[in-house]
């Protein structure tokens, strides 16, 4: 199994979620994060003094999928999350050795 970690723009979450659901991927875990990259933050003024906001709000989606579905999943996420603007985010793929469903104890693919 593979873990897809996608960093996307917050307002794209809903689109990505439904796109993945259409693909039959019924589970994911989402985290509010802050990102830093090519898309620089901006400077704000507070009571007359400038300050840089270097981190921008992003959403991190973690989804574990059977290896054979990785390519489709990447495609789907990339299309759904894309705006063409800098800061669209990244998709990282790493491998998961085992998965256990807490409720049943089922393991690996059957646990997804």
């Amino acid at each position: 199994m593979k873990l897809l970690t996608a960093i996307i723009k917050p307002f794209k979450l809903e689109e990505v979620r439904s796109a993945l659901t259409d693909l039959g991927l019924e589970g994911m875990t989402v985290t509010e994060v802050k990102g830093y990259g090519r898309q620089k933050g901006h400077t704000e003024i507070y009571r007359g003094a400038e300050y840089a906001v270097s981190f921008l709000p992003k959403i991190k989606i973690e989804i574990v999928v059977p290896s054979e579905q990785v390519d489709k999943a990447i495609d789907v996420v990339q299309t759904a999350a894309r705006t063409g603007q800098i800061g669209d985010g990244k998709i990282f793929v790493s491998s998961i050795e085992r998965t256990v469903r807490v409720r049943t104890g089922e393991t690996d693919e059957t646990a997804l």
Partner: protein
Amino acid sequence: MTSMKNNLNLGLAAFTVLAMASVPAFAQEAAAPTVAITAATTPNVDYIFNTVLFLIGGFLVMWMAAGFAMLEAGLVRSKNVAMQCTKNIALYSIAGLMFWAVGYNLMYPGDDGWIVADVVGKFLPVSLPDPASDTGNAYATGSDWFFQMVFCATTCSIVSGTLAERIKLWPFLIFCVVLTGIIYPIQGSWEWGAGWLDDMGFSDFAGSTLVHSTGGWAALAGALLLGARAGKYGPNGEIHPMPGSSMPLATLGTFILWLGWFGFNGASQLALGTLENASAVAKIFVNTNMAAAAGVIVAIILTQVIYGKVDLTMALNGALAGLVSITAEPLTPAVWQAVVIGAVGGVIVVFTVPLLDKMRIDDVVGAIPVHLIAGIWGTLIVAWTNSDANVVTQAIGVGAIGAFVFIASFVVWAFLKFTIGLRPTLEEETDGLDKAEIGIEAYPEFGTGSQRI
């Protein structure tokens, strides 16, 4: 609310009545109700009581500006909260400046100050007499101006809630200038300025129509031209609720408004210097409170029955709708009638809030149901309890003021839309107006605030 003119007479009455009032014989006679009633206090005491009524009523209504600020801050999403706070303190300030520079004399031209008789007053800034010779009325001139000004500000506060989260700061503030300086005073002069509606016998004690519906019409015109918040309505008629960021602030705002309303309605009796006036103010307090209470309970019961859960925001709107409903006539109803009038206000909220959504009119805080629709209800029902009013005249007043305010506002909004524009860019709206125009988040440390997973 009678016109200032009438009020002056009332002041003079005090003087004349007095000759009899302060003779030694007075005390005994006082025991007999009939006399005790007509018996005014001495002119100075009468004057002081009236002034105190205006000042206390005035600061209570001023406090309502904070109520609107908190209610709206609680009902918008956190990414627009700082903007909403900015709009509210700015509009209250603008109302003060405009009502001084233009509004007051446009609304209260006196008997012979009209530009167009009984329709348009005069353009003249206000200046206050030296206190040592402020004897023209049965109250201090400044106290009357202050009390009238806060009503003007309230009208403006109503607009900010409906249009929240998607209108740029400056076009909104420019509209406030016109509303508080021109639109509100002109329609106000027709009734409280002793203009043509007052002559006709239209009756609006504390402003269900003159203040609340007026604010509601101006908001409605804006909402239509402005359109809904991005993502609020789906292509196939879906409605996507955008829950407010802080229920306790919304609740606080509602309690503040409820408190302020005792000044709003109570001091609209305009006089406190006689036993009858004092008793009238007290009765108004009771009716005002009961109408609000009924609005809350009805909204709670209805949302429980219809949706299976109690909707706090509807309960809060219910309190306000009850208050608006009783505002046109808080004095003549018996207590049970005040309960009924307020209860209907609660019903109005529960059914018209979703209705507006179906019509795809995006009213962020529910100001249109609460102030416009309940305001119309309150004005028409005056005829039920006040024999001096008749429903036809009431309807004419509602219609005339509604038409004028809606059209005038529409024109101003349209002008702004096609010149400087009303809306921020979609990206600015998505990021939130705080980031786009204020430059500080309302809650910089609480989660990312501006969106929810």
